[in-house]
């Protein structure tokens, strides 16, 4: 019991320490670049927590990160490194928009459900192809998922310029989805839509799936050592493809909620790099779906804050990318140092036996 507690504590304080170091580094960097660092952090804070309205907006930004973060986390657990959450998210947006502007006669709740299902399907399809290429032709999913991200991006660019283009708007964007399909806001005057709540439920479900079911055991076994899993009688290809399907579907659902809950139409930059940030989200949470809820909040806070920083003190909102990169490096290094200590502790008794 005591050991379990220290394990939990370790899994919390190490990421926290890494985040703390990253904040210190960011402060230093801002100062070196010649920006007022204190003001930057004040505007970061005010943009996220000043009142209920901006806090709702932070949760709104966290929602796509929550879904894509769980998507990347389950992939990492099953050793399919899904950098394609970006493309799967975008395809989810596109499919949901298509449903929203095509089936305008449907009653609201049904339309919302169909939009989310369409998003899940499109995301899963976009994840399935790299999964298939990995298992059948052993082509690295890293290359294919990234290529699929770019293809998805251009596809959306095509959709919003040609077949879906709303000619009443100056910028290329799609028609607005049917009004009964707009998801209600949970708190008045904020942009908080049900997506975040559904995302939290999804996180718990995926946690149960990963750690309490046989399928989850298979996924983790393949992730830990696919050769051993194969000899243990697990169908590695099928497990990897299933992992990729679930991962893609989750990212696609995130896209559907973004359209139905927040944007209400499709445009080229709808994703804003959520799928890439999701990698940082998942790693900070040590690929634990429940932890992703917390880390998506942190990065949602960073996303809404970085826009405010650009507005108030003029530092490019890409500063968020730097902070993400630093956090990933610190967390990855800290996580490995934990593994190493454990291993040396395990080894000792084995050595003793060998001597006897």
């Amino acid at each position, binding site marked *: 019991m005591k050991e379990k507690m220290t394990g939990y504590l370790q899994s919390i304080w190490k990421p926290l320490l890494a985040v703390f170091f990253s904040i210190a580094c960011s402060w230093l960097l801002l100062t070196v670049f010649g920006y007022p660092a204190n003001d930057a952090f004040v505007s970061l804070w005010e943009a996220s927590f000043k009142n209920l309205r901006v806090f709702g907006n932070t949760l709104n930004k966290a929602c796509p990160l929550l879904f894509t973060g769980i998507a990347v986390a389950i992939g990492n657990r099953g050793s399919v490194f899904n950098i394609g959450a970006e493309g799967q998210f975008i395809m989810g947006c596109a499919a949901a928009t298509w449903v929203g502007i095509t089936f305008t006669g449907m009653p609201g709740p049904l339309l919302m459900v169909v939009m989310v299902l369409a998003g899940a399907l499109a995301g899963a399809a976009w994840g399935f192809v790299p999964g298939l290429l990995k298992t059948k032709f052993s082509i690295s999913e890293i290359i294919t998922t990234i*290529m699929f991200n770019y293809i998805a991006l*251009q596809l959306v660019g095509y959709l919003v310029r040609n077949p879906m283009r709303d000619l009443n708007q100056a910028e290329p964007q799609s028609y607005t989805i049917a009004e009964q399909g707009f998801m209600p806001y949970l708190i008045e005057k904020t942009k908080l839509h049900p997506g975040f709540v559904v995302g939290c439920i999804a996180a718990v479900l995926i946690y149960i799936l990963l750690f309490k079911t046989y399928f989850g055991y298979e996924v983790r076994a393949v992730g830990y050592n696919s050769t051993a899993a194969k000899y243990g009688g697990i169908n590695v290809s099928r497990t990897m493809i299933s992992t990729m399907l679930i991962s893609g579907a989750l990212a696609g659902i995130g896209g559907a909620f973004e359209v139905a809950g927040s944007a209400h139409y499709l445009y080229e930059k709808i994703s804003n790099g959520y799928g890439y940030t999701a990698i940082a989200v998942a790693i900070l949470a040590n690929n634990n779906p429940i932890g992703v809820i917390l880390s998506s909040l942190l990065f949602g806070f960073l996303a809404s804050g970085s826009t405010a920083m650009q507005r108030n003190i003029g530092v490019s909102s890409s500063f968020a990318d730097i902070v993400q990169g630093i956090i990933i490096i610190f967390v*990855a290094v800290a996580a490995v140092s934990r593994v190493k200590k454990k291993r040396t502790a395990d080894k000792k008794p084995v050595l003793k036996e060998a001597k006897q």
Partner: protein
Amino acid sequence: MDQLSSFLAATIRMAIPLLIAALGLLVSERSGLMNIGVEGTMLSGAFAAFSVAYYTNNYWLGMLAGMLAGCFMTLVFAVAAIKFRAPQVVIGCAINMLGSGFTAVLFRKMFFDAQTGGTQVKSFPSLQIPGLSSVPLLGETFFSHNIIVYIGILMVPAIWFLMNRTSIGTRIIAVGEHPKAADSLGINVFVTRYAAALFSGLLMGMAGAYLAIAQSNTFQVDMTGGKGYIAMAVVVLGKWRALGVLAGALIFGGANALQMTLQNAGLNIPNNLILMVPYIVTVLAVLAACKQKAIDASAKGVPYEKA
């Protein structure tokens, strides 16, 4: 005829950054370091080259700065991956974010206020090789490029020689195939991997610098547009051999040139669909080549721990 030669010339021009970056990545991967941070490393090289060329008005100094910036990014990668044994794919992702973030923030800080239009620098001029450059077809295709193109092409035999005919190359391959065995023979695994990483950084930075101050004369935020990732595909396609990488880079250069030709041809195809071509070609080409035998390092991505 004119269109053909300009298509071929564009193929070579577009292939060079992929070629140089992929040659660097080849050395890194054969030593066992799977660096997916090529994109971010190239971006850093592009930005450093652009800003130094802008302030010194000298493109050679710009090129040097780009290479050093690339070197610095791979140093960060190498320290995390070799010394701290952090997962390489994860660190590579972080490098991409750092490259994209740093260049965007610094570009906005240093050049955004100066001019609203794109700030331009003096870039490498194209050399018209006397006599040869006026030969029909061949002249424009092969003999009218800037000096970096020729350096890039010369790098192919140089890397081949390094990997296949020198003891350094053998050491790199040894630590990539079986670090423990290499270590027992007295090869320092860590030093070899650090050297391979830094060398690859020089080349990736050079590839980025080429984009900013040889192929164009300006910097744009995220101007690599996935070329770093395509370079990763080029290495796979080239089966981790220098000559193969040249062939792979030319295929992708061709896809890019085709995309440009289609755009200029004024056909009634939506632009976004044409812009997809290089990425679709990447997937198809890797798929077509996947059955052939490759010589990828066995210990790739596995951190080495001295017993």
